[in-house]
């Protein structure tokens, strides 16, 4: 059963077409890695999935419900705000730059949306927060403020914060790109643990090693289209398309 389904998604920024007909679906429990050169539209596509960006045409379905679909004139028409808000809560999002709230402690970062959005009482919110802080290995850091933590720790807090909302699918937008190399491991480990627990995940990443190890399926995007997709091992070890081979050789050479 698919949790997420995008069909023929088109998106323009001013005159630049960044997504030219992207279709993909994510099944429950699946981990999908989206790779590709910068400017390929992979982050934009991920951001379209939870309406951080709006699409021009195409459709996006979440758990069988349309968040957006084409109207009779071929232009995308979004569902009403209330339904969209409900659908978006099924998706957790982790950003490249963590985007923790700097004026709130780690614990408050995790509790806030639970209380404001899900109307959970403070005690329960705190309990949930502690469960997920512990899960990302930061049970001791509840009272800290984000600036007191390393980048890797901040990103783990951001993951915990998203998990506190009990999402059905977690989206990661280059979660390790802003980190010093020695800090990426701890974040990737948390993500591996999540994958082990059958969390459905869509990960835009440059970490080919991670994609190979954790993802069941890899999507290679370039210039706004999906060039190649398939089983992780196949796409990464035996790419069929010249562009995929070129990209992979560049990325792997850089190591």
């Amino acid at each position, binding site marked *: 059963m698919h949790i997420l389904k995008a069909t023929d998604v088109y998106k323009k920024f001013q005159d630049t077409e960044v997504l030219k007909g992207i279709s993909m679906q994510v099944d429950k429990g699946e981990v999908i890695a989206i790779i590709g050169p910068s400017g390929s539209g992979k982050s934009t596509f991920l951001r379209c999935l*939870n309406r*951080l960006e709006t699409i021009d045409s195409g459709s996006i379905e979440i758990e069988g419900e349309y968040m957006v679909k084409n109207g009779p004139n071929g232009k995308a028409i979004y569902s009403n705000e209330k339904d969209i*808000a409900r659908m*978006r*809560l099924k*998706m*957790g*999002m982790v*950003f490249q*730059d963590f*985007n*923790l*709230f*700097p*004026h709130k402690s780690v614990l408050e970062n995790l509790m*806030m*949306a639970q209380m*404001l*959005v*899900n109307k959970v009482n403070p005690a329960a919110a705190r309990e949930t927060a502690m469960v997920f802080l512990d899960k990302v290995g930061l049970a001791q850091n509840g009272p800290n*403020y*984000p*600036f007191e933590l390393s980048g890797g720790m901040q990103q783990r807090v*951001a993951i915990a*914060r*998203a998990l506190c*909302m009990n999402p059905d699918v977690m989206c990661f937008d280059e979660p390790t790109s802003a980190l010093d190399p020695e800090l990426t491991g701890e974040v990737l480990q948390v993500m591996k643990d999540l994958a082990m627990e059958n969390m459905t995940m869509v990960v835009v990443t440059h970490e080919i090693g991670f994609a190979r190890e954790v993802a069941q399926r890899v999507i290679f995007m370039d210039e706004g289209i999906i060039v190649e997709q398939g089983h992780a091992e196949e796409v990464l070890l035996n790419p069929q398309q010249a562009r995929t081979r070129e990209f992979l050789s560049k990325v792997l050479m850089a190591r």
Partner: protein
Amino acid sequence: MYRLTAFKQSACKFDKGFIMDYLTSLLPFMLEGTAITLKLFFLTLIMMLPFGVVLALGRLSKLKPLSVTTQFYIWVFRGTPLLLQLLFIYFGLGIIGINIDRFTAAVVAFVLNYTAYLAEVYRSGIQSIDLGQFEAADVLGLSRWQTLSRIILPQMVKRVLPPISNEVINLIKDTSLVYAIGITELLRVAKIAAVRDMLFVPFIAAAIFYLVMTAVIQQTFKWLEYRYAYYR
């Protein structure tokens, strides 16, 4: 009046005792003037701080008519002298038959003027906040109002404290402009005494009063900045 006589009698005898006596006699009037100054200051302050936020949000609104109207407002009130606005509101309203007392006119003029300045300070503060903060709040499901009140505005406050302290210090000094519509505030008291007694001392006394008030403002903001230093 008797001071003038005393002055003539003392015949330029500027001994320490005389100046102290003189200042002591001046003090009640200076304090009365200061009370008016502070009353205008605080009334303007408590209104301009929230009104500025409202105006800044209007300025940043995606609704074109709203943002254009607020821009026009800001242009008018930053683009003309405060003194002129003061005269306009007090005398101008009188001409069209709306009579308000001097002090109310002063408060209205100051609030209208300072709100325009604060709106721009707040706007720059809001715009300096990383887009990622809005997005993080958005994906967590926070409403626009929750995002503003819990995430954006609290962070904005920390960033705008230094420019706001500038505005607040300007405000305490600008209150002296209300002499133009005949309100007897601190500087006017000093001026009356100086002219009447042909002495410079009242001006020095007034300067000290202003310096004490600005010192208190500076310290307050220093404390506020310290209080907001718990995060970066």
